[in-house]
């Protein structure tokens, strides 16, 4: 199965992925309407920096997802492609998933009062963030096909849960 991998050494910190993500989750799915949409569309991944590292942090779609375990309303679930997704109408805004996600990639939609997270752009083959990355720091690849060496270089090879 194709997964999103991050190559931190290639990330320029340009946040193109953040913008593309917000556009993808906007009403019109294009830049100019998206920037004037109110409330503003929300991105689901976050370019962060620490020390010499910068990279987008995004949902790993954990196999044993702490957010699903924490969800007390039956909103979060793993779909048939193993993507961790929301049944939006079930979210009550209790933020248990926000508390549980060790990557800090679930945020709050303050207007709609629901949790917001990456849906892996499940309706399309290539997620918007991967498409937007000018340096291929975000790549879509099949973990099974990647060589051992390639795997060691990327982050997010394991869909681990709470423990690192």
């Amino acid at each position, binding site marked *: 199965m194709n997964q999103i991998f991050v190559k931190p050494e*290639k*990330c*320029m*910190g*340009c*946040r193109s992925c953040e913008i593309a993500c917000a556009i993808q989750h906007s009403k019109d799915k294009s830049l100019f309407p998206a920037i004037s949409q109110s409330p503003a569309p929300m991105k689901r991944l976050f*370019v*962060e*920096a620490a020390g010499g590292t*910068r990279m987008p942090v995004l949902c790993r779609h954990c196999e044993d997802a702490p957010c699903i375990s924490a969800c007390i309303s039956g909103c979060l679930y793993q779909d048939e492609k193993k993507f961790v997704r929301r049944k939006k109408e079930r979210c009550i805004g209790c933020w248990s998933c926000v508390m549980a996600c060790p990557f800090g990639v679930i945020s709050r939609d303050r207007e709609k009062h629901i949790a917001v997270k990456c849906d892996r752009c499940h309706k399309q083959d290539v997620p918007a963030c991967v498409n937007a990355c*000018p*340096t*291929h720091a975000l790549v879509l690849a099949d973990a099974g096909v990647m060589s051992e060496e390639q795997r060691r270089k990327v982050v997010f090879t394991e869909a681990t849960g709470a423990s690192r």
Partner: protein
Amino acid sequence: MEKSIDSGTLFALKAADTQGIKTVWDRYEAQKPQCGFGETGLCCRNCMQGPCRIDPFGEGPQTGVCGANADVMVARWVARAVAAGTASHGGHAKHLAHTLLKSANGEAPDYPIKDEAKLRAVAARIGVTNVGDVKTLARNVAMKALEEFSEKESPLTWAASTMTKGRVDTFVKLGVVPTGIDSVVAEAMHRTTYGVDADPVNLLLGAIKCALADYAGCHLATDLADILFGTPQPAVTRANLGVLKKNAVNIAVHGHNPLLSDMIAQVADDKGLNDKARAAGASEGINVVGVCCTGNEVMMRHKIPLATSSVSQETAILTGALDAMVVDYQCIMPSLANVAECYHTKLITTMSIAKIPKATHIEFQEANARESAAQIISVAIDAFKKRDPKKVSIPDVSSQAIVGFSTETIIGALAKVNKEDPLKPLIDNIVSGNIYGVCLFAGCNTVKVTQDANYVAMIKELAKNNVLILATGCASGAFARHGFMTPEATNKYAGPGLKAVLTAVGQAAGLGGPLPLVLHMGSCVDNSRAADLAVALANKLGVDLNQLPVVASAPEAVTEKAVAIGTWAVAAGLPTHLGVVPPVLGSKVVTQVLTSTAKDLFGGYFIVEPDPIKASAQLLSAMSERRKGLGLSA
């Protein structure tokens, strides 16, 4: 990384923290990570087919839509940054030239010619012969100065008449002689626009040509400021936030041009205004303090203490004791309005080209400058009445600073040692190795470097090795805050040779002790003073600037003006250190030209090194190479 090593700044930042006020450091944190394309210079927004960026890893596009590659993009940025810096210094200088003209025409009575000797010296240098009275001479100098801005048929007078012959020949040979300050800025904009110059080396030469106009602009600004306000003489004052007074109406002048700050300093002595301040409850009357470069201007001419500088400008307001911050232009962070809003402080803008929403704008009129200044001071007195004593917390921190070493002053002091040949003692000591070399520190403070850390680390390293230290701009602020502009610092940090020289000159000049470790030469336009000193030395020795053991360093640089100054320093033949990596690394060609090829062409070159100890070592080795070249002990 720590924000600062300055205790005054750290004190004020604590207050910001407890009150939840955001400062430049918080905003920097919020910007992280900063975009790597920007950091490497690999994005271009010069046309509307863009924006374009180049993948530095080679997988993505290697050219923009128009075909410009990394080298072109980066070189264009360099040229445009230099142009912006040149436009700023030029604007500053032009403002002074107009005022000098008004003064000569009797239209600016508050700006009399204060330094006739300087006027005559400048006039003689630029070939304005004395025709009549001082006013006529001043008018002719002002007209000549204004001519410098448009395109002439001849080289810029202020560049050609102040450089060594060797330099001028080199500039002519390489085709980088500017003929007008504003015109070369325009040319830089022209050649960097869509579809003009696509040769990175040619673009860089264009940048150098523009930078030489920046040099002329700086020199012009220094000359005219001296004519209007007096050539600086040594003055003893203090620096750091502790110079704010609890019981005074505190007014900070911030920005660059002495046209504003000098007038505020003059009018602040007015008895009526001081009575008004005391009547408002300020028992110590009016207390003017400086911030940034204009702080340097009034520090050396009026002993006005320096509150803070550059990156920490917001801290003056954070003391809760600043009643007004009066600004002109350049390096004024728009955030000042937001910080001032948390206090009673009035942020007062004065220039038509530099307004800030939420600030109070009082247009500064040269024609009735004293009146404008008085109006500004009255606003400050009114603000004082609204000061909240509970919010006042001034750190008890300030250091003594002996400032105001203009080239004339330094030569004057040397003349006390050798009246007939003032430069001889300096040259003898350079030859003997008592003075290993000269380093000019210039530039800013930046959030990217722990404030003052590079300055302090480097001065200790260089002084220990007998390097004579000159400083301008916000570099001066850093050294002043940390007590390096004192005789004590000379005793503590100077190597034996340097200490002996500074002591001998200090004694001869009647100071009763050594000169301070750092010779404060003024604001950032006053880098021209350091250039003058170097040119005098070179001419005396019969060599060119690129042979002297003279280097420059901007270890905490920020602005486009710093890029322009650094570039002309390189063109002038100086090894020039930058402690912050400029956005050029995306181009191998540009990096190569600036750090290496430039040496073959001009003798000067950039040394980019964030580590202050390593940078010091590289500067020492550059001086060593120069000494060897002159046949001196290395």
